[in-house]
């Protein structure tokens, strides 16, 4: 990264970590914390989907992993008393491991075939959650406690959220930090030789194999990283809402994760972040339209995809300075 990108990153961090809380405080719109926290977490799940796009696969199944991650964390916290902060990486890991077994067979498929199978995954996850005793069926898992204190050698790293005066702010800060880490990792992947290899898969799998790339392995790695992000996002989401049901993440969420990537731009690391923000706020702003909300919303998305096939970040406005800040 050059100096300019570091500077832009710094400005971004100042805005989201200092500017936004200040503005919310000044305006008294406390509900914005929940909205922005959701955007941050959903953009982590979308980042995962973006990575599968990056190896040339259309992934409409991220909802399955956010659901699995959510349940994994909820079960660990409520039944085994594991600290929430520990369940975060565990939920991600669980999703990554499951995705290896699912990915091995299905990642051989390409194009619409892969997309169709992933579309089914979310529904399978929902039905499984409905049927299993450990997930408590349709009643779901409720009254999940807020994240407990995390300490290392007696030193408090993260305080117990239940004792905080403003847990909403704490959730927001935590979500933003996770989002930044997630996109930093994504940026690093894309700008290292790893990204170069992923692009080779996206552009020509056969040639990639013939220059010695273990394409099956690389695909599974990328897919499991993607699912890890889904799991972490799902687990965090559940801890904010303090409950999870089989319907917490549905097919429509999987579709939204994909749309976020499309809309932001598949060629830009920051695409899914911007896409998530726009779609989430777009949907909320159209709330006043009542029963026409979905109609207008869908029409606008179609229009955007037709007019800007390479995403919002392909607008000249963003490209004068050559790519996003990250």
């Amino acid at each position, binding site marked *: 990264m050059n100096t300019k990108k570091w500077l832009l990153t710094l400005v971004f961090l100042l805005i989201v970590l200092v500017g936004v809380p200040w503005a919310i405080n000044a305006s008294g719109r406390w509900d914005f914390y929940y909205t922005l926290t959701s955007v941050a977490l959903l953009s982590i799940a979308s980042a995962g989907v973006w990575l599968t796009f990056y190896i040339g696969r259309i992934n409409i199944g991220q909802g399955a992993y956010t659901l699995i991650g959510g349940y994994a964390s909820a079960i660990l916290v409520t039944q085994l008393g594991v600290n929430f902060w520990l369940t975060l990486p565990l939920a991600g890991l669980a999703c990554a491991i499951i995705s290896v077994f699912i990915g091995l067979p299905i990642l051989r498929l390409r194009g619409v075939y892969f997309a169709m199978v992933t579309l089914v995954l979310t529904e399978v996850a929902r039905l499984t959650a409905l049927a299993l005793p450990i997930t408590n069926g349709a009643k779901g898992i409720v009254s999940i406690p807020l994240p407990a204190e995390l300490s290392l050698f007696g030193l408090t790293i993260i305080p117990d959220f239940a004792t905080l005066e403003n847990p909403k702010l704490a959730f927001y800060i935590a979500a933003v930090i996770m989002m930044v880490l997630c996109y930093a990792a994504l940026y690093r992947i894309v700008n290292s030789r790893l990204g*170069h290899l992923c692009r080779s898969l996206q*552009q*020509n799998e056969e040639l990639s194999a*013939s*220059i010695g*790339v273990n394409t099956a392995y690389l695909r599974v790695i990328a897919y499991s990283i993607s699912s890890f992000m889904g799991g972490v996002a799902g687990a965090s989401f559940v801890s904010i809402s303090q409950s999870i049901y089989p319907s917490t993440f549905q097919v429509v969420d999987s579709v939204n994760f994909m749309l976020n990537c499309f809309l932001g731009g598949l060629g830009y690391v920051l695409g899914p972040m911007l896409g998530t923000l726009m779609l989430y706020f777009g949907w909320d702003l159209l709330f006043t339209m009542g029963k026409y909300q979905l109609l207008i919303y869908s029409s606008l998305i179609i229009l955007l995809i037709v007019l800007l096939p390479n995403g919002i970040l392909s607008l000249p406005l963003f490209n004068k300075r050559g790519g996003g800040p990250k």
Partner: protein
Amino acid sequence: MSTILEVKNLTRRFGGLVAVNSVNFTVNEGEILSIIGPNGAGKSTLFKLISSFLKTSGGEVIFKGEKISNLSPHVVARKGIVRTFQETTIFRSMTTRENIIVAHHLRAKASLSGYFWGSAKARRDEALFADSADEIITFLGMEPIADELASNLPQGNLRALGIAIGLATKPEILLLDEPFAGMNHDETMHMVDLVRNVQKERGVTIMLVEHDMPAVMKISDRIVVINFGEKIAEGTPAEIRNNEKVIEAYLGSEDDAIGI
């Protein structure tokens, strides 16, 4: 001269069609061996079998005494057998240089996570690949198009880029499927020199499939002729030129002229 590759009773069926039928031949280390034959004779299928992009229906391929048929394609590539494609295949949305750099994968020492964290090995790999790519670009005279997107390159350059990608893997055997297709006479002669250079200066054994007979006659040390999946002749360009069966096979098909 030692044998580097041996094709033994190699067979491949597609349903009822026998695309490659019990073909036998050997390849000597350091030679240029051409496979010729009319359209649909089974030449590309033969290459796909050798590079393990297709499973065999019978027979085997032996590389340096080791059976390599039916392994994964990337494993065969790793052993040193690399194929370029009949259809121009390159990474379209990368520049010439990026294409060549990514193709160095076989020589990578660092792990995937090493590349993520930027380990010492990874940095050494990256520096090495960049240098080697520059060297290949110079060797093939591609400096003017080094930073051009591959999707913007004309056909002739794409073929050269295909060979550059092959070279980056430092293969022991390079399989070129119709490297001169779609080129005019001058471009073809330039490519012939280029392929000869690859063989002479880099010691790469080359197998190529080609329809351009003057080019084949000029470039080949030996030629194997196949027709309807079967080998019908084998020998030096002079021997093939005068072979009855070959002349017959080519006269029998309309769109090919052996050009002799």
